[in-house]
């Protein structure tokens, strides 16, 4: 138990502080470790405290302050013990009260000095926000309280009651700290959950685009078309792999200069393989024409150049013209004509698609001026929908004709070219689309700010 030995009778308030420090040197250091630690910061901050300044002006506080500081430092340096919350709260009530009155609220950092976390023996300790508020209030009552609190004789009598209060306050602080830690953990959990949620949403969006219909009502027809789209994607991926193999075979055949007959066989293999994908597309279009038309089964760069569910034959021919030299005049003429006819057919089909869009828009926008009979409206609406449904059905026809055009153009091209030229043309076409696919990959993987 601390006792008060007046060492400096001249200064009343600060002098008593100095007394306390001196007296506690003789007692169990462990109990007061934390309070000392705290006090050093207080001492440093004391100069900022208006109350202290007031007191300072009244007495030789400065000298005592330095005395206190030096004393505290030596005490803290020799500390090794950890003390419990209870013992720590057994501050010298006198000390604490005077501290409260004289302390300034440090700028930023606070640590609950009533903590059970007594491991911190560093001179630089912090106060909790709770304590800061606590102290703020006391500070406001400061000037008068300081003088009251400096009465040394009064303090010793209030000690037991204050100990309970101190303990309670320390426990409160402890509870508050734990609560803050829990809150922090909860917030972190929320943050990570939020991130995960956005990731899942993105995945869902991507999956939806690929035709997987996720419905709470479990609509069978939707899931069917979704399955059709997914099935096609899988089959297309397989087709691409097979295509790569065929093309590699063709490339090695061309590079090793095999005979025409052998080359012809390999070229025919490749063109037959092309027929496979058109068959697949036809089947998939019956299940889900919009999936094919959307081009979601293609990579983004390929999709950019898409025309009615696939490539533009006229563009492809333009690309090939440069790569197939040397060409005879007849071949050149034939290819130019082919490019021209392909362009004409593409234009015709595009015009048909535009007419379809326009017609569909007119059908849906055509709401008759409101009739009084509601059943009439319903009948109109249903009639409109039926008509629109019919128009949508013709989309499949357009896709089929577009694919037909692509196939026919390739067939005609092979008729114009020699076997070797056909081989080179197939390699060039494959390389072009490979590059587009590679571009898509690069694009998707590009670093974003």
């Amino acid at each position, binding site marked *: 138990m601390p006792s008060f030995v007046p060492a400096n009778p001249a200064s009343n308030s600060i002098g008593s502080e100095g007394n306390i420090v001196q007296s506690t040197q003789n007692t169990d250091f462990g109990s007061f470790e934390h309070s000392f630690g705290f006090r050093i910061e207080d001492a440093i901050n004391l100069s900022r405290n208006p109350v202290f300044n007031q007191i300072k002006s009244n007495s030789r506080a400065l000298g005592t302050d330095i005395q206190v500081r030096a004393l505290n430092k030596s005490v803290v340096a020799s500390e090794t013990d950890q003390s419990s919350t209870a013992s720590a709260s057994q501050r010298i009530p006198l000390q604490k009260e005077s501290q409260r009155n004289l302390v300034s609220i440090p700028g930023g950092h606070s640590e609950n000095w009533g903590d059970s976390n007594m491991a911190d023996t560093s001179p630089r300790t912090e106060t909790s926000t709770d304590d800061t508020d606590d102290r703020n209030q006391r500070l406001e009552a400061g000037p008068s309280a300081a003088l009251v609190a400096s009465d040394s004789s009064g303090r010793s009598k209030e000690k037991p009651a204050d100990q309970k209060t101190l303990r309670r306050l320390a426990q409160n602080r402890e509870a508050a700290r734990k609560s803050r830690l829990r809150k922090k953990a909860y917030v972190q959990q929320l943050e990570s959950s939020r991130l995960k949620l956005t990731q899942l949403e993105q995945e869902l969006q991507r999956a939806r685009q690929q035709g997987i219909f996720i419905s709470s009502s479990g609509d069978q027809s939707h899931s069917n078309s979704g399955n059709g789209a997914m099935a096609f994607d899988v089959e297309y991926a397989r087709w691409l792999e097979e295509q790569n193999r065929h093309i590699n075979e063709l490339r090695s055949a061309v590079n090793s200069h095999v005979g025409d007959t052998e080359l012809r066989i390999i070229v025919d293999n490749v063109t037959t393989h092309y027929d496979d994908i058109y068959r697949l597309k036809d089947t998939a279009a019956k299940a889900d024409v919009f999936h094919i038309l959307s081009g979601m089964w293609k990579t983004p760069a390929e999709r950019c150049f898409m025309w009615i569910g696939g490539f533009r034959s006229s563009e492809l021919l333009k690309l090939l013209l440069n790569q197939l030299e040397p060409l005879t005049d007849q071949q050149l003429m034939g290819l130019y004509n*082919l490019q021209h006819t392909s362009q004409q057919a593409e234009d015709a089909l595009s015009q048909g698609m535009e007419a379809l869009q326009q017609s569909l828009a007119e059908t849906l926008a055509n709401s008759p001026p409101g009739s009084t009979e509601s059943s009439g409206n319903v009948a109109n609406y249903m009639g409109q929908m039926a008509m629109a449904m019919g128009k949508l059905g013709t989309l499949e026809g357009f896709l089929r004709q577009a694919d037909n055009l692509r196939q026919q153009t390739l067939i005609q091209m092979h008729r114009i070219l020699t076997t070797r030229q056909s081989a080179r043309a197939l390699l060039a076409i494959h390389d072009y689309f490979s590059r587009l696919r590679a571009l898509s990959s690069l694009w998707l993987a590009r670093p974003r700010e």
Partner: protein
Amino acid sequence: MDRVKDLASKKAAVIFTKSSCCMCHSIKSLFYELGASPAIHELDREASGREMEWALRGLGCNPSVPAVFIGGRFIGSAKDVISYHVDGSLKQMLIDAKAIWF
């Protein structure tokens, strides 16, 4: 059937369509692009439209429209027209039937 044959022989290029059919619109555009001016008969505007459609289906035209006749001869539907167009024979047929001159 008679009506169909009758109409088909009246002009070098004849196309049977329906007003609501957009593929018919495409085939018409193609013919105009080639410089032909085919006779267009809309089945939904014809009195015996349904019978004519049935007759066209009988010829093997699926879908029934557009149905293309050149020089009185049944050529086919959209698919056939495009195939003939790509390999150049459509143009030749039109020239032969004197629907176009070059």
